[in-house]
């Protein structure tokens, strides 16, 4: 493995209006194809970290380097393109546009990226393939997203994050709305498909029961030195 996929270096970020940084002196490296578990309670700066990796906010100092490219050097539009091209995102809930059906929601994942559209080939077919792979019953594929159960919605969200084989899938508490049984099945399928797509996985959760299945486990509190003495 030549170069790490993602390198965060001495990252520091303060939300406008806040007294102190929510993230400070954070270092993290993710290699290609790795499954990384990042443990952290809510309020520990998880969402901020994901926004930094997604290029939605820029750090006060430090750097986010993705495949050797420092995001700081990119314009806002270029960062949006980078996100569309290289990242798939799954949140805890509210992942889907409620008025689109499952297939259309999955296709949204490559809507804004030519690269991922090209990789997906026939986007419609690919969306159906991923929905099947994530275990969504076929009779749900053309249902509106808001007619699906929470578990089904998360499967659709995972399929969307994976379509067009992004380099990195960011998963922010994707299982906390699921019960234990569904949670394990979901993570299993997510692993399988991420591996097939060749995507690295950054899985952020407070649920440390899941941690043992990952290649690497980090505690966000250890990485993030916000609030620590300088």
């Amino acid at each position, binding site marked *: 493995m030549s170069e790490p996929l993602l390198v965060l270096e001495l990252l520091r970020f303060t939300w406008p209006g806040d007294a102190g940084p929510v993230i400070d002196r954070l270092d993290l490296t993710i290699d290609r194809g790795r499954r990384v578990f990042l443990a952290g309670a809510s309020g520990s700066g998880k969402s901020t970290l994901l926004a930094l990796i997604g290029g939605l906010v820029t750090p006060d100092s430090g750097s986010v380097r993705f495949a050797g490219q420092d995001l700081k050097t990119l314009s806002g539009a270029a960062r949006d*393109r980078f*996100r569309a091209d290289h*990242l798939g*995102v799954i949140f805890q809930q*509210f992942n889907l*546009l409620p008025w689109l059906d499952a297939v259309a929601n999955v296709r949204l994942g490559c809507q*804004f990226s030519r690269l991922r559209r090209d990789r997906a080939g026939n986007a419609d077919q690919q969306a159906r393939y991923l929905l099947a792979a994530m275990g969504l019953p076929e009779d749900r594929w053309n249902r509106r997203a808001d007619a699906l159960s929470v578990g089904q919605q998360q499967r659709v969200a995972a399929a*969307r994050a994976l379509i067009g084989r992004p380099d990195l899938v960011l998963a922010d508490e994707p299982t906390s709305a699921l019960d234990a049984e569904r949670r394990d099945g979901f993570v299993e399928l997510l692993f399988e498909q991420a591996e097939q797509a060749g995507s690295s996985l950054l899985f952020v959760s407070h649920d440390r029961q899941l941690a043992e299945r990952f290649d690497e486990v980090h505690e966000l509190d250890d990485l993030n030195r916000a609030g620590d003495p300088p």
Partner: protein
Amino acid sequence: MTLLGLARGSLANRRAAVALTVATIAISIGLLVLVEQMRGQLREGFYRSVSGTDLIVGAPTAPVQLLLSSVFGLGNPARNVAWQSYRDIVADPVVAWSIPISLGDSHQGYRVVGTTAAMFEHYRYAGRQALEFRHGGPFEDLFEVVVGAQVARSLGYAPGDRVVLGHGGGNVSLHQHDDQAFEVSGVLAPTGTPVDQSLYIRLAAHHAIHIGWERGLPRPGDTLLPDQARASIERLQPDQISAFFLGLKTRAAAFGLQYEINRYPNEALLAVLPGIALQELWRITGLAERILRIVAGLVVLAGLLGMLTALLTTLNERRREMAILRACGARPWQIAGLLLLEAAVMTLFGIIVGLVLAVSAQLALSPWLLDNFGIAVSPAWPEAWHWLVLAAIWLAGVLVALVPALMVYRRTLADGMQVRQ
């Protein structure tokens, strides 16, 4: 799926609210287009009726009143014109033709005009078009009547039918000239002018049926029976008429003759150029038109503000959707563009539905206008500059949506991929 596809899905998701917004815009556009169209059509319709006449002469009154009473049967002439004055004026060498008219009678709400055969020979409408008979021909006998197209259609008259004329204008005539029935000699082809709403009888007949009615009621024994009237036709030359139309050999002579008529020494007379009288009428109605226009414009504004309200109220519920799109790599301008696109689609539909409404309203109104004013209004597409106005409204709709679009733009930048509470 494109941005347009997303806009369509989002609109379809809010069908009811979108339909209401489109309806609001459609009604406002319909009103605006209708006001403009009717204005143009009415003017054209009025102009059509007088465009072949060079001068209208009657007793002194307001020029507009003379025009309205003589041509359109609206209101009554103030006084009459002496027959002798008529003879004098039409003797002028610049006069090509003349049509005397006597008003005051009606039949089933349609006005009865006493005139001469010159009416069918010389009257011109819509530029140079002469009257044509659809059935039969001009009146010859004293008690024959020619009916306009609309009269014939609504009352079912054909040549040979017998008609009893009422006295006085209006729909309800208490007194009928029922001892002097007329026979229909001909039916005129439709003209889209008040001619369609009129019945024409000979001047002498008009005079004859009023002998004995000088006090407004028949005096028993004094009225003429038809055969008596026919026998004394020479004596039935009227000594007064209501007004007369003049056609001149050259249009340029109109001003000179008008000047002379207005200074006619034996009797106070008024000659008007119909085009100029119409201009005066439009000046009077212009204020009302302007007010209607302003009202229509304000209604359009209200429609667009309604759309703005509808868009703004969706912003909170859509905040999450915007964040999802952001997470999928949508740029802020694409998300703002989604709102502009939705506004563009809604305004466009509003304009299209509004045009349909306006045309339907014209279709619905035209029979009423034809019946009551003899003005033919045919639904037409807006003129070129109306399209420009509609395009400007469409643009305004998109511009209005800039407000929520900018709000969304700023919000998506602040929210990032997840809605921050």
